[in-house]
């Protein structure tokens, strides 16, 4: 009588294996169309004051918020997510960085949030960091793409393409901001990257042409 439970157990294991195999077999939907377009980086004019830095954007961000970043010593990238009012962003003394990342070459090695529930660990003044970056001739400015906070384009691409060789990577550009970089390679032109991008950093081909 031990055969019955064993048979059932085997049947269950088989069923689990089949479900696992089926769920891992991803169908790649190839949409007709062209390759996605990477939006140009966001530029701004900067005014320095004793207690604040005002950044005047040259375009309206899609989300109404942008990352203001400043590079610090030791390849550390500091960022704060600020609201935009009338295309202006103001960073005041006492505005602490929301996150920091470690940059190695052109890629982000690690990132961590500094804002905990209602505290900062540690408190890094973003105004001071921008001034220090300006004085030391390090990069600072505004960034449209929300990386390393958001990785939707990469995740969406990974859901379609197996393996690590995906066409989208996020890189630190020479002027210090991070933006997606697209290499045609294996791109199936499924459109998931620009559909999922909340900031408009990756655009559909027709909008990219405009």
């Amino acid at each position, binding site marked *: 009588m031990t055969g019955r*439970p064993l048979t059932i157990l085997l049947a269950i294991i088989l069923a689990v294996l089949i479900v696992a195999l089926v769920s891992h077999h991803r169908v790649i939907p190839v949409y007709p169309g062209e390759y996605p377009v990477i939006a140009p980086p966001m530029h701004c004019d900067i005014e320095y004051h004793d207690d604040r830095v005002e950044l005047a954007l040259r375009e309206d961000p899609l989300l109404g918020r942008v990352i203001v970043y400043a590079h610090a010593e030791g390849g550390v990238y500091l960022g704060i997510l600020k609201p935009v009012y009338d295309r202006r962003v103001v960073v005041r003394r006492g505005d602490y960085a929301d996150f920091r990342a470690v940059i190695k070459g052109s890629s982000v090695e690690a990132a961590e949030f500094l804002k*905990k*529930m209602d505290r900062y660990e540690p408190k890094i003044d973003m105004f001071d960091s921008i001034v220090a970056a300006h004085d030391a001739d390090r990069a600072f400015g505004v960034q449209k793409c929300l990386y390393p906070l958001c990785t939707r384009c990469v995740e969406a691409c990974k859901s379609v393409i197996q393996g690590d060789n995906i066409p989208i990577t996020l890189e630190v550009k020479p002027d210090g901001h991070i933006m997606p970089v697209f290499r045609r390679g294996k791109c199936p032109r499924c459109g998931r990257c620009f559909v999922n991008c909340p900031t408009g950093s990756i655009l559909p081909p027709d909008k990219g042409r405009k």
Partner: protein
Amino acid sequence: MNLIGAIALGIFLLTLVASIRGWIPQRVLPIQSALLAASALIALVGILSGAPLNWGDLISYTSIHPVTATIAGFVFAGALRAAGGFEAAASLVSRVMRLKYGSPFAVMLLVNLPTIFAMPCGRIWVAPLLPVTILLGEEIARKNKDRAVPAMLVFGLVINAAASCGPSLIGGIGALGEGMGRYPAGSFSNPQSIAIVIISALVMLFVKYFYREKAPLPVRVSADAENRPVPEHGFFSLIIFIIVLGATVAFEPPVPLQTILVGLTIVVMLVEGVSINDLVGGIMLHPLTAMLSGFIAAGVLGAFGGFTVLVGLLDFAASSTPLGYAGVAVLLAYLPIIFPMPCGRILAVSLIPAVLMFGERLAEATAVPSVQPALLIAFILCAAASCGPSPLGGIGSLGRGGLGSRISTTAFPRCWPY
């Protein structure tokens, strides 16, 4: 200070103390009814005084996960009992005991199993393990002629299981604290597990040495467990249960624990022909309703600002009394043990922000940044374990029920090690 919040807090604490101290006898008004009545009273006072009650805010204080996980655990325990899994476990333990050093190994494994495979609610382990632990305790008691052994083992298991939702990565209180404090997932798990093992051992020692004369007697004399007939698929049910739960903890599959337990139950039902009545027989409504009534009371209290008042009082005590921030922080950490609820989440959800705030102030005052996570871990552990000594339908009630023990003889030894 918000007057309605203060009144709400007063009613809540009074009800709690009255139920814990037995001023409201459980035979007259069990904790569920008492908390429900207190909630209704708070709501009535609030509404009559013109304070708005947002029903949604009240409901949002409820955690569904521990309730459904416990139901699923009880259902499976019912199936396991009907399938002979308990007899199989007793037989297995009995065989292990015959080995050299088998007894301490069996005790260590049984008592610490809930923390090794930490579930979001300790009741999931206690329900199937309790009968085996009692049997094992009685065997050792007979061999060693020590009547305290069953109580030692049972309450060791109870406190281990109660606290195990602290280190549990699948939706335990510890995960809640880590998430709210924005610490990496699982970062508090290991220190808690080690602490729980030590605390369980201390509880067992306390039961043995300090409460020996009060410890309940093993009233039943069990037959030799090894010679008891084990139903045909008892071992199969038991082994599949342990393997699947172990795998769930180890691999954290993206399938809800409840689904896994229900799936297991169906397998056992198919194999052994267990009926629905057996499953229903495994469900204990008291802990479930106690947990839910606690959430309702916490919801009403939160909706009328009772917790804000409590935090305000603690803040006042810290700044204006000799207790200071250190004293109040310690008091805050022990609050779940002082007011042991049937589920630690009832207080944890509302008080973790206050713990973080006090931790931060204490860290600033002492210039030791690790004070904050230390305070948070202490609070989480106390909250998680508090359903052990809770006389209000906590896990301890299961242990007491199993031993036929009285509340007062067992609640204190389980509090002391904290």
